[in-house]
């Protein structure tokens, strides 16, 4: 079979329409994952009894199992849970009304949460203890010290790793095809299914992913530059 360069272009345009799906999965999983990850990291850092053990178990289980497995567990497990609950509580809601992409949102958020909790934790540990003491010494509560002093700096320190997580989730979102969500990759497969020019279609998909990744990298670099301005030393 011969390479058909013009079909790369054709496929490219047809795949573009799947971008919103891919981006929405990425955005939802990153945002929810960040929230989950932050709570998880703080619970572990502050050694909250019971919760911190649960948080550790969550992180090791999720990081110890593949993302595709999470999706399948949620896809098959969640309906059982929901329908069982609904039946016993007399709700009319049934799991069939959950859209397929909903399973991707939920499971990828859980995946991202575990990875991002480690990123946030590392960021928090990068802030020196002395500044927290200084915040306490002027009468701030622990929560004020966290919100005003350590967390903003932890975020700044964690930015490069957070950007990596976003890229990881962008690429990981291709797994959503397993629950019949048509993301960029799945769209490439569909486009090629009529003429069997899979290589061209996947190449177009790769170019799109690459472009999106470069955009994320650029954005991250810009944010890093702004947020990290306080770190550019002059004298000391």
């Amino acid at each position: 079979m011969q390479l058909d360069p013009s079909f790369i272009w054709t496929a490219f345009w047809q795949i573009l329409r799947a971008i919103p799906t891919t981006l929405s999965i990425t955005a939802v999983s990153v945002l929810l994952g960040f929230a989950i990850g932050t709570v998880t990291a703080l619970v572990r850092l502050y050694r909250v009894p019971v919760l911190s053990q649960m948080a550790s178990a969550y992180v090791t289980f999720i990081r110890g199992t593949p993302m595709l497995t999470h999706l399948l567990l949620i896809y098959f497990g969640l309906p059982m849970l929901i329908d069982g609950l609904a039946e016993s509580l007399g709700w009319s809601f049934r799991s069939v009304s959950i859209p397929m992409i909903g399973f991707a949102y939920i499971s990828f958020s859980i995946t991202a949460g575990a990875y991002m909790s480690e990123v946030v934790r590392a960021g928090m540990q990068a802030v020196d203890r002395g500044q927290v003491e200084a915040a306490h010494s002027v009468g701030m509560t622990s929560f004020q010290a966290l919100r005003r002093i350590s967390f903003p700096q932890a975020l700044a320190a964690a930015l490069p790793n957070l950007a990596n997580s976003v890229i990881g989730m962008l690429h990981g979102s291709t797994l959503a095809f397993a629950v019949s969500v048509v993301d960029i990759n799945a769209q490439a497969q569909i486009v090629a299914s009529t003429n069997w020019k899979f290589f061209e279609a996947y190449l177009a998909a790769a170019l799109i992913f690459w472009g999106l990744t470069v955009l994320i990298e650029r954005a991250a670099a810009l944010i890093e530059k702004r947020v990290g301005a306080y770190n550019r030393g002059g004298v000391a």
Partner: protein
Amino acid sequence: MIELKKISKSFGRHRVLQDISLSVKTGEVVVILGPSGSGKTTLLRCVNYLEKPASGEIAVGDFKMDCAQAKRGDILRLRRKTAMVFQQYNLFRHKTALENVMEALLVVKKMPAAEARSRSVALLEKVGLGGKLDEYPSRLSGGQQQRVGIARALALEPEVILFDEPTSALDPELVGEVLEVIRDIAREGITMIVVTHEMGFARDVANRVVFMDGGVVVEEGTPDDVFQHPKEERTKQFLRRITPEANWVI
């Protein structure tokens, strides 16, 4: 007026502070001296509860607390009456000099921004940093950072300022500017407890010198008493070791 009564503190099995009592009058400058490991920094940190004393009583102004049963509210009130200047400055690194000083006024005192700002500017001018308001700590020298730290401590108008070896981390040529600022504040009659190794400075600003060793107060008195006529053998040893060349010692 600061009153510490029978403060005790252990790290593991090591007793760092053994029933220490110390009282500081309003406007008094007390310098605590002692070899490293004597517990002087720990004592200072107990006063604003960065270390939790195992037992004892702390009174600052009209506020009094029993350390053995300190509640969160007590700790906050104590901290709002005291301020600390740290050896490593501990400035908030993501905030400018001005923001560092304003922070507690805004967050703790809930002061309106304009008022907090004008007060902080005045304080930074006082420590000679009127031209560095918008610089981040990473762009300030150690001496400048420590002066911001002093302005930050002054901002809350605490009843006492605690200085924890404020010049120990500085390059020798920067020590002078920081000591000068502390000296100025001392002259204004602000109550201070200072842990330092700067003997000349101690002699100069202190109303009273406290010599600590092994978690207890070995000797205290006026600078003349302690430096010229130390009574205890341990004090003499320490002074001889730390200032072998100084002609005013012993």
